[in-house]
């Protein structure tokens, strides 16, 4: 009898171990028992095919798989006209949560309001509209603008022995991040009259346009001290213009970005010097968690927007350089 019980126990243990190994081997996420299975989430990004949005979707999909809800991605492919149409279509489908990535502060404001009034919870990701909604997950652009401007003042301002000349290369002057970062930076620069912003021209997020603007500005101001690019991708063009002009040692190139391995490579190659990373991989996980909570009925007590601010990582060239700050797709 004892032997029979022992044999059964041994068989059960073996079966459990085999099962556990199989589960680990397939690397499949564990599925949570929840009451949000079968719910519908639609994400309308500015464009897929860039590490930022691909990184978010990877993490959001993991959450959807765990909890059993669906995540549909509707790619606007940098076409703002198509984006409003996609959003209108998404609203008409009455999803439980709508995730939007605002290209400008105005463009989707009316549709966000409409979705919320129809009972659809809207999560804005990384770029915020003028119109508040149920939740926001993303970078604190005011903080990034202020911190970068503060660093520029430290490097180029009084006592630095530098000219104090700064060129700003925004993406678009009406884009949420560009608007907020410029406001914050100019507020800091206003307190430091030795800082002179010699150029503030949008590149339309294009590296070649950023390169041409920077090459021209560098020619007019050979003693330029720093360049503040609003996105690491288009700032690649600006950084290359600085490098081609042989000024990589005298001009500091600042930018912000999702912090994937390309950002670290740019710092390694001396194309950019300091990148304020909002860690798109972490943002994707935060967005996934926020969607889980919204689907479970989370809402702030006073009806204000739930906000998750993304922690920042600063990728810096020089002795402080740490490649582990960047993530890989």
């Amino acid at each position, binding site marked *: 009898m004892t032997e029979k019980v022992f044999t059964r126990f041994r068989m059960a243990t073996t079966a459990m171990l085999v099962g556990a190994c199989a589960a680990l081997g397939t690397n499949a996420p564990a599925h949570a028992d929840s009451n949000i299975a079968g719910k519908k989430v639609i994400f309308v990004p500015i464009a*897929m095919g*860039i590490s930022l949005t691909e990184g978010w979707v990877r993490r959001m999909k993991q959450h959807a798989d765990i909890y059993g809800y669906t995540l549909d991605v509707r790619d606007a492919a940098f076409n703002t006209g198509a984006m409003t149409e996609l959003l209108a279509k998404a609203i008409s489908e009455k999803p439980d949560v709508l995730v939007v990535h605002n290209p400008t502060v105005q463009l989707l404001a009316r549709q966000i309001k409409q979705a919320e009034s129809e009972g659809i919870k809207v999560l804005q990701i990384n770029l915020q509209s003028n119109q508040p909604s149920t939740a926001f997950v993303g970078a604190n652009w005011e903080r990034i603008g202020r911190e970068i401007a503060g660093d520029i003042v430290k490097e180029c301002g009084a006592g630095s022995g530098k000219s104090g000349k700064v060129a700003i290369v925004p993406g678009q002057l009406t884009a949420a991040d560009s608007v907020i970062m410029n406001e914050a930076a100019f507020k800091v620069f206003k307190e430091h009259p030795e800082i002179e912003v010699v150029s503030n021209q949008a590149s339309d997020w294009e590296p070649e346009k950023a390169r041409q603007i920077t090459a*021209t500005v560098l020619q007019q101001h050979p003693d330029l001290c720093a360049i503040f690019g609003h996105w690491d991708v288009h700032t690649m063009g600006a950084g290359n213009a600085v490098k081609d002009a042989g000024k990589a040692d005298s001009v500091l190139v600042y930018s912000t970005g999702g912090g994937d391995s390309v950002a670290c490579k740019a710092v390694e190659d001396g194309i950019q010097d300091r990148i304020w990373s909002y860690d798109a991989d972490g943002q994707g996980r935060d967005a996934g968690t926020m969607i889980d909570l919204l689907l479970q009925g989370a809402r702030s007590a006073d009806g204000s927007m739930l906000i998750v601010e993304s922690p920042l990582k600063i990728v810096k060239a020089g002795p402080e350089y740490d490649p582990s700050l960047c993530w890989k797709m």
Partner: protein
Amino acid sequence: MSDVAIRPVGRSRRENLLERVVAAVTVVLIVVFSISIEGFATLGNLKVILSNAAAIAVLSCGMAVVVVTRGLDLSLVAQMVSGALTFSILVANGTPASIAILIAITTMALIGMLNAWMIAYVEIPAMLATLASAMFVTGLFRFAVLQGGFLLLLPKTDPTVAFFAGEVGPGLPVSVALMVATLAATWFLLNATARGRVIYAMGDNFQSARLTGLPVRTTTIVVYVFAALTALLAGLITSSASGAVDFRTVTNGTLLFDVILVVVLGGIPLRGGRGGLRNIVVGLALIVVLRNGMTLIDFTTQTQDMLKGLVLIVAIVTDNYLNPRDTETDTVGDL
């Protein structure tokens, strides 16, 4: 065909009036910018102007040859980015640069032939054929080659990228040397070959050229393949300089608009049959000087686009006033 074109007395001078007006405006702008903008009238800024002009100049050569035949290539910028992508992705995957460039040339020549086939054999209007081809090429290359992406970043450490972004001699960037070579090749094609005569004849009166027995179909192939190859060259110059192949240049950018602006402002009418190297240089000079000056003044991109659009409208209205359509020019196939 006679070597001497018979034209009504005084017409040639009238036709060149737009070109002269644009040249005069450019000179005025140069003087005003030199006086009012610090750092404009310097040798260094001239180098920047030439370097920034290289890609648009090369593209304008391709577009000008097409427009002279009374055509239009709206797929030029899509071809530019696709050509650069083909080359860059092959090099990034370890293909020797010489083979990569041969494959890119072949691919672009095939796209040029596809455009020409649709226009010359299927007889679809050039504007519609190249618009469709621009969409097809962009979609195909984005999804089949770039796997849905928009952007390919290029390492400046790659020897080929470094070559295109470097200098052939002290103070002479490779991009500027390629621009001069392309301008010379355009002049040669239009002025020193029998094919050049056919190109002008096609633009002047397509039906007459065809009825006369001129090889209009094969010339269309030559013209669109030439345009595709200039697009590839412009793509290599741009992507090497900025370190990125970026499809947003096709979908969002104003480069195609700038190229048409250069051609029209230079005095090459969209109804074809006229124009040459001098017109390209005149149109190019105005656009690059205007762009450089506006950047130095720190105008926003929106203001720059608005002013360029205004300049184009004024140029087209002036062109229509100076070269009114008559029974000879107002024929089937006009844009």
